[in-house]
């Protein structure tokens, strides 16, 4: 090793992390000052000792297994855990072990990087701070469940299916799952399975070899290969064509695939996270989605609740996006007027967080005062429109829902309409209008644009 290597000491000092070089028996040859600092030993004390005796980690390397595996295979390896310094401090670390090659490609030793991860772990010490840093905001019980599940799901390597209506943050959750996983140092590759035609999607996912089709002038690695050791995020998986679903199933089962036009089978090590707003179970029943693929993807499942199911979160999100856009646009908007808040809290956001964000961006742009007023909100909030409501769970049907209109007369939202029958709503409307007119039936009938007789009949009907 020594004969094969240049002077490594000066080279190692340029590394931003503790590093040591081991020989082919895992004995320490040299280490940088950062490694001396983190272990508490000077190189003169520990040169010639087995590396693991000095680092003392719990990364599954206490008999040097990780070192020996890298020496045997030549493939780099990473592991997380903690180490004990000679000052009895426990430090969370990430090991990165790579083989050093000598003349003729012979493995002559190892380079071991011991990254101190205590700073990143401290930064994410509380769930609230952590999720906020990840761009996930919510205090409702429904979102708490999601936040609690994320660290657990991130630690496993199984496939995850993320479902939820459009705009609920499926992409964000997939990114967080990757960032919190052991694969975080490797690529996160996202591909929209609904955006490309079948042939192009196959080439994008699995790559192609030169000459596979007209225009294939060079070998192209697919997204799966680009995501090697990392995570591939297949968004809108429900829109994936059936023939490709078969190929994806093979990848999930065997971890191998053949590029378009290729002959050689490639092996990959990729974690799959898939997302869809479609009700996959129904897609399976209709024969549009393969059942076996559904069960293979649905090993772990995260369902993101629609904004209307996230009690109390709208207010937090409004404040968050207001601050964000006010800062971005250089405006001094500090809040919402009370009538604007009533409108915004009453609206039911079929487009979920994305729609809420767009509404606030519009309002901040339009606002000329310190507080966003009702007149600054997008006019469509006050229109009674038919909108396409996406399915909120995979078990729910796609449905056409009526967006929640504002009560133009009072300026207040009709909160009650969601849960009640028309009779209940009408009765409440009469009661409210009577109260407003201090029990005067003539004025009440006028307000409701009814005749007095009609009002009397309705009051009889509802026992008023």
């Amino acid at each position, binding site marked *: 090793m020594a004969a094969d290597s240049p002077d490594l000491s000066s080279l190692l000092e340029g590394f931003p992390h503790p590093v040591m070089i081991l020989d082919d*028996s895992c*004995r320490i040859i040299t280490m940088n000052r950062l490694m001396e600092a983190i272990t508490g030993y000077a190189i003169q*004390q*520990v040169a*010639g*000792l*087995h590396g*693991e*005796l*000095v680092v*003392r980690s*719990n990364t599954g390397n*206490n*008999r*040097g297994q990780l070192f020996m595996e890298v020496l045997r295979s030549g493939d780099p390896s990473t592991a997380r855990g903690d180490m*004990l*310094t*000679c000052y*009895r*401090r*426990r430090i969370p670390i990430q090991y990165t072990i790579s083989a050093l090659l000598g003349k003729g490609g012979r493995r002559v030793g190892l380079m071991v990087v011991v990254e101190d991860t205590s700073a990143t772990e401290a930064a994410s010490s509380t769930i609230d701070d952590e999720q906020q840093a990840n761009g996930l905001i919510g205090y409702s019980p429904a979102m708490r469940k999601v936040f609690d599940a994320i660290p657990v799901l991130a630690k496993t390597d199984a496939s995850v299916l993320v479902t939820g209506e459009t705009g609920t943050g499926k992409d964000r959750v997939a990114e967080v799952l990757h960032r919190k996983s052991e694969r975080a140092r490797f690529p996160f590759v996202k591909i929209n399975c609904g955006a490309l035609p079948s042939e192009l999607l196959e080439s994008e996912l699995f790559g192609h070899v030169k000459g596979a089709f007209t225009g294939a002038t060079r070998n192209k690695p697919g997204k799966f290969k680009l995501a090697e050791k990392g995570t591939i995020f297949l968004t809108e998986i429900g829109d994936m064509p059936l023939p490709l679903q078969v190929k994806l199933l093979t990848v999930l089962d065997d971890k191998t695939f053949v590029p378009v036009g290729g002959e050689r089978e490639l092996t990959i090590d990729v974690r799959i996270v898939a997302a869809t707003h479609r009700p996959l179970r129904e897609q399976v029943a209709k024969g549009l989605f393969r059942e076996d693929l559904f069960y293979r993807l649905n090993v772990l499942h995260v369902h993101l609740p629609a904004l209307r199911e996230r009690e109390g979160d709208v207010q937090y999100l409004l404040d968050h996006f207001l601050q964000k856009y006010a800062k971005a646009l250089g405006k001094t908007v500090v809040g919402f007027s009370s009538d604007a808040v009533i409108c915004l809290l009453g609206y039911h956001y079929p487009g979920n967080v994305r729609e809420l964000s767009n509404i606030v961006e519009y309002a901040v742009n339009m606002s000329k005062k310190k507080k966003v007023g009702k007149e600054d909100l997008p006019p469509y909030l006050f229109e009674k429109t038919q909108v396409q409501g996406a399915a909120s769970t995979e078990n729910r049907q796609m449905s056409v829902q009526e967006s929640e209109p504002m009560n133009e007369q009072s300026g207040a939202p009709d909160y009650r309409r969601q849960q009640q029958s028309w009779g209940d709503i009408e009765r409440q409307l009469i009661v409210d209008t009577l109260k407003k007119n201090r029990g005067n039936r003539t004025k009440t009938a006028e307000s409701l644009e009814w005749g007095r007789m009609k009002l009397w009949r309705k009051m009889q009907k509802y026992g008023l």
Partner: protein
Amino acid sequence: MRKLLIPIQGDYVAPRFDLAVELLIVRFSDDGQEEPRTIIMERPSEEALCQMIVEEQVTDLVCGGIDEVHYNFLLWKKVDVIDGVIGGWCRALEKAVCGDLKAGEILLNGEGALAL
């Protein structure tokens, strides 16, 4: 009569107290030492190890890395802890019985490779 415990791994002092499952216990006095006996724990656990040290009325502990919490606990329980020892347990035992072993001592000078 004193009682010494060394968490070991093969021929060596275990690099970490909390990961050790093999324990060596020796009773010794100024007149000499008894035959060492070994105990295999079901699984590594620093809590269980501390409990055993207290229950067995161990007076001396020689170990590799140990974290501050457990180190201080054992000191509070009046156990003499010599930690940070790197090397073979035979030499560590000899030196500990003679009272020559110091914390952080590396007992492998000139011995070359240490095959864990």
